[in-house]
């Protein structure tokens, strides 16, 4: 029970970056750098097959991480695969962000009746795993990145709408928002001017977490064959090809797996770190009493 009047006025100071945020940034930076470098340079031509150098173990001359059953350099494949992973996860996360926020804000501004209906819809949609959507799309259209992206968007949008709806409703109930309404501001204006900035921290964290989950889902979808199709290089796809060779060349499944873990961990830590950094109130509150 510390009385505020006796403490020094809190000076606005730069808070130190939490370690999770720093590690997250480093890991994400690593993946990003890999994808960027692969655009201009890779150890080998990613499409070139080398039948004479099939299934070289890691560390052999010229092939740092070895080669696969068609003699392609694994390091090259992983570097190029980073492009696909980042592409799919960024596009699908941003799309779910866009649609989810629009849906959440619309629900927040809607009459209670309509809001309940939207809420029920969100609940039901959230119950449908993205993998099922991807399978339906792979059946009716064709397997590939498009199916993966639509599936991820369908899966993540409900949760984005949910995290938007709660804080947006809170923000709408603030006095100054009511005042703005009294001045005759339109709902759309209020949403953009007052509500959106308020929920921005929540959305930044949500986006980071979505990046991480999208990478996992993309890898899973290409692993089971409904995501990226050859010749597109994707981490899940490399693992799919490595599975039958598990007793011959176990190292083939090691490095793409590590790449996935690093990328997912990076974005997860980034999200965790941002959560703590953007919202110091999260640091726990006293329970009262003494």
């Amino acid at each position: 029970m510390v009385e505020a009047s006796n403490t020094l006025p809190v000076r606005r100071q730069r808070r130190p970056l939490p370690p999770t945020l720093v590690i997250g940034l480093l890991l994400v930076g690593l993946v990003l750098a890999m994808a960027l470098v692969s655009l201009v340079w890779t150890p080998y031509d990613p499409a070139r097959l080398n039948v004479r150098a099939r299934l070289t173990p890691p560390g052999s001359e010229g092939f740092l991480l070895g080669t696969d059953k068609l003699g392609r350099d694994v390091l090259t494949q992983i570097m190029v695969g980073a492009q696909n992973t980042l592409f799919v996860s960024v596009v699908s996360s941003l799309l779910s962000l866009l649609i989810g926020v629009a849906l959440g804000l619309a629900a927040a501004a809607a009459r209670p009746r309509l809001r309940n209906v939207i809420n029920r819809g969100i609940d039901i949609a959230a119950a449908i795993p993205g993998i099922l959507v991807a399978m339906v799309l792979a059946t009716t259209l064709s397997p590939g990145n498009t199916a993966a992206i639509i599936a991820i968007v369908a899966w993540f949008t409900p949760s984005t709408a949910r995290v938007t709806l709660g804080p947006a409703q809170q923000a709408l109930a603030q006095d100054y928002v009511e005042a703005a309404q009294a001045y005759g501001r339109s709902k759309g204006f209020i949403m953009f001017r007052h509500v959106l900035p308020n929920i921005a921290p929540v959305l930044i964290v949500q986006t980071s977490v979505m990046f991480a989950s999208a990478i996992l889902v993309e890898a899973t979808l290409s692993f089971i064959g409904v995501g990226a199709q050859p010749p597109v290089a994707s981490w899940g796809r490399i693992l799919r090809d490595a599975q039958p060779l598990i007793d011959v060349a176990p190292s083939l499944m090691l490095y793409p797996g590590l790449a996935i873990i690093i990328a997912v961990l990076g974005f997860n830590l980034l999200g965790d770190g941002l959560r703590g950094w953007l919202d110091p109130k999260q640091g726990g509150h006293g329970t009262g009493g003494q």
Partner: protein
Amino acid sequence: MNARFLSLIGRGLASLAVSALVGSLLVFAMLRLLGGDVALIILGQDAKPDAADALRIELGLNNPWHVQYVDWMRGFLTGNLGRSYSGGYDIFGQIAARLGPTLFLAIGSLLVSLLLALLIGTYSAIHSRRLRGAVVDVGAQVGTAIPAFWIGLVLIYLFSVTLGWLPAGGYVSPVTDPWKSFLGLILPIASLSAGSTALLARFVRSSMIDIMEEDYIRTGMGKGLTFPQALFRHGLRNAAIPVVTVSALQLGNLLAGTIVVENIFVIPGLGRLLMVAVYGREVMVVQSLVFIILLIILVMNFCLDLAYGLLDPRIGDRRKGGAHG
């Protein structure tokens, strides 16, 4: 069975029915609207027109859509969902035969991860100020970042290929040979529950850290319990309440993981059948399978809702406060 619990069941069933209806409509619409002509998807775009016509008549695709939908739904009740076009098998019969392994995997790994998460999370909460707690925290962070299928591959490599201790795949019914069945399920359940254990353990940990400061833990100590005893007797159940909510949100992930794991470990469940049907572009099989998997999720969600109501007597209780005292 008190009135509160009966009303929880009633409301749960009503919401289950609504979700199942909407879900089935969504599945039906996605498969009928997205790809265009269903007969051509099944037969391929270069199919002969008369073959396509024959298939349309066989599958009732010329009927109005609501008739098709009602026929499909009726098929679930009468046990007649038609035959697979390329496999020739009876779809309903296959679903019934493959339900067991899938349910075993899904429910088994849900229970395993809940149990492990409670143990690990509680342990790390008690030791939250020490290194051991931090180790669990980091482990949980990394654990959630590993894809289930990769864990499956690593486990196969370690325990089947290298050590030869456990089978790399296949499924034995627990009715025929419980021991073999158990051995065969260890690796699939381990790869399926690793991620959710890590995720849930983090929730148990934070929920336990909150509960350690609760006054009723101190009351328990005041009665003569030690701190760990009070935490175990009075904290565990209260800490489990939010964890059940979170695990309900994870059901989609769980079933998605089941589909993948069935395919890695060659387990004859719904997920494996679904995969084959997707590759064969068997719209009718996919439609029924996707709905059944969705139904499993909804029913498990219903069960977790009930568990939530059992754990927390305040849920759905109108007798609050002392007015009735």
